[in-house]
């Protein structure tokens, strides 16, 4: 047991302090964030920015009421509009300046409310871009609304009634926001599942391959038998599998720390982002469980393949079936996102090698009952014990043999050797 610890220690010391590990640890999340959060992040940034607006009030009567009409805030607490209300004399005097600011995009638009607005005149909207119909419509509605309130008031209508009428208009706005909220929640679920799925998929392959290369390195550098003079093949394999797994966990911890730092920074500047990354502790717990299950299933097999091989080429060829065992569940998982309740998915989520990804997806999308989850975990633990036993047999014979790639009957014979 002490010797497994020694092997794990060496694995960590020699793997963590390498250029490859540091580069991978830094670039990995940048890549991940790029492909998963990037689009949502940029979309939210471009949508949610304060807008500078200059309103020229030629009626000279609307001015006091306009700031209230444009007083709503963005999700991050910033005001949606930075409003400047001026009269026509100021406008005429500083016209050149405003036009220059429009040109420089310091202000989005200059809107002129004509003096005949009471009789239904024409609003003038001046902007560098006039394609944003939604925004133009919004500005017109706001001004129109304020104009109508003033008209109603002047017609002698009770201010309470006016308030009621405008309140009704506000109800409409809330409805739209509710629709957006529902949409966001769907997106959030999907993003969480997708990010975790990619991490499960990538790390199974990466660390599995790292295990295989480690075993192969020990064979090609001819140190295997030296190590066997101090320990046995089973301890050697377990040390390797645990060691590489620990290196992986260290990488995870660094990633979590980096992620917390990034999110703290992002949340400070844009609280809306938090909605996308709120992960329940239960989901995170199962993520760790299924990472461990998936990693052990795969890496013991990769270790056996490393032991069978004498060269990189052998290892590549022999590891293809294992890679397929990882790729197929990953592909199937895209259908799960569409229909997590399908029978095929439910059945496959019990099958070793499929469980880590499919059962995890079911948990994130549509929590199955606990006995289903733990039933699948038990089946997978049994598979890990069986897989480790077979791998250890192959490992023990394979690590001492050099030369040609073994055939399937030969490998079966190795498993039968006592």
């Amino acid at each position, binding site marked *: 047991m*002490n*010797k497994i610890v*020694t*092997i794990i220690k*060496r694995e960590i*010391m*020699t793997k963590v302090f390498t250029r490859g590990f540091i580069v991978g640890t830094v670039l990995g999340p940048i890549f991940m964030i790029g492909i998963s959060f990037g689009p949502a992040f940029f979309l939210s940034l471009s949508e949610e920015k304060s807008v500078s607006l200059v309103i020229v009030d030629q009626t000279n009567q609307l001015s006091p009421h306009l700031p209230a009409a444009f007083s709503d805030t963005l999700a991050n607490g910033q005001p949606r509009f930075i409003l400047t209300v001026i009269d026509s004399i100021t406008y005429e005097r500083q016209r050149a300046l405003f036009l220059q600011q429009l040109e420089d995009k310091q202000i989005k638009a200059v809107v002129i409310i004509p003096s005949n607005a009471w009789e239904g005149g024409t609003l003038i909207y001046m902007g560098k871009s006039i394609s944003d119909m939604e925004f133009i419509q919004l500005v017109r509605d706001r001004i129109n609304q304020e104009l109508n309130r003033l008209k109603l008031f002047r017609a002698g209508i009770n201010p309470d009634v006016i308030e009621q009428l405008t309140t009704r208009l506000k109800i409409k706005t809330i409805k739209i926001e509710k629709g957006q909220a529902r949409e966001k929640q769907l997106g959030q679920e999907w993003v969480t599942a997708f990010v975790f799925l990619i991490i499960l998929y990538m790390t199974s392959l990466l660390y599995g391959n790292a295990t295989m290369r480690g075993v192969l*390195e*020990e064979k090609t*550098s*001819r*140190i*295997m*038998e*030296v*190590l*066997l*003079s*101090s*320990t*046995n*093949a089973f301890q050697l394999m377990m040390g390797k599998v645990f060691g590489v797994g620990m290196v992986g966990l260290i990488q995870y911890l660094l990633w979590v720390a980096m992620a917390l730092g990034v999110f703290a920074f992002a949340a400070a500047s844009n609280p809306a982002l938090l909605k996308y990354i709120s992960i329940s502790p239960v989901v995170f717990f199962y993520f760790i469980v299924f990472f461990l299950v998936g990693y052990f299933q795969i890496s013991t097999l990769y270790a056996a393949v490393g032991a069978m091989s004498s060269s990189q080429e052998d290892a590549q060829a022999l590891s293809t079936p294992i890679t397929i065992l990882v790729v197929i569940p990953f592909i199937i998982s895209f259908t799960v996102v569409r229909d997590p309740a399908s029978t095929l998915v439910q059945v496959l989520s019990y099958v070793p090698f499929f469980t880590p990804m499919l059962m995890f997806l079911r948990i994130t999308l549509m929590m199955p009952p606990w006995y289903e989850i733990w039933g699948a975990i038990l089946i997978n633990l049994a598979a890990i014990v069986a897989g480790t036993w077979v791998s250890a047999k192959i490992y023990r014979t394979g690590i*001492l043999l*050099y030369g040609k790639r073994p055939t399937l009957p030969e490998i079966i014979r190795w498993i039968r050797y*006592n």
Partner: protein
Amino acid sequence: MAVLIVDQVSKFYDHFKAVDRVSFQIEAGRMFGLLGPNGAGKTTTMRMIMNIIIPDEGRIEIFGARFQEEHKNQIGYLPEERGLYPKMKVVDHLQFLGEMKGLSAAEARRRAHHWLERFELEKWAEKKVQELSKGMQQKIQFISTIMHDPQLIIMDEPFSGLDPINTKLLKDILLELKQAGKTIILSTHLMDQAEKLCEEICLINRGRVVLQGPLSDIKQRYSHNSVQLEYAGDASFIAALPFVERINDYGNYMEIRLKDQTAPQELFQAVAQAGLQVSRFEAMETSLNDIFIEIVGGGNGHE
């Protein structure tokens, strides 16, 4: 006390008998030679002693008990297939291998430095293994075999790839270890090395023991009556002497095989009487190499 007992041990691969009912026994403090041509089964036998592969038949006892995993801390094994992690620092590597033999990290590091000094490699301690020459790497492997002060040392072809200076260094340290009471098994196909170092041998051919016992007994049993002669003049009369079996004449050097029961003394007198000018007359002991070739020879022992 017998440190190691190998009793009727066999290992089969399909229908090929790699090791076939091999038995031997080694007393504490002995230097034991496990000899044989390439492919005879030496490495398989040593792997079975180390429990790296499991015998199909027979019994192996180490330190008076069946093999236990903890025994590995008491054994230093230098396999024929040996290597190091190329990217590790020398001293870190030795510390790792020391810890693998049950030493504490601090103790392993201390001993690593001690032995590096002894082998004049101290200034390489912080270098990566891959920067060392092949000979230096061999020395590092040798250090890793003995740094945990094992009671039983097993070395498979330890001299292969070593230059004469390092061969001498290794030989000196092996003798020192033997004097300190360690038991040493030396496997080699180089008979002159075995002849100089071992007190007992076991010769294996095609998986079977063909000869074993104390080296002196074996030499006596296989000694032939032969004489080496360096001379000047006409020595053709020697071939006609009644007690001479055959000769091998090189002109001024001659190898003479005498008939059994003939003392070399008789030939010496005959040569002296004939007035031959002799610069060297040597009664030969049969070398282990000759015995090896005689037993294994005929090309039937090789792969």
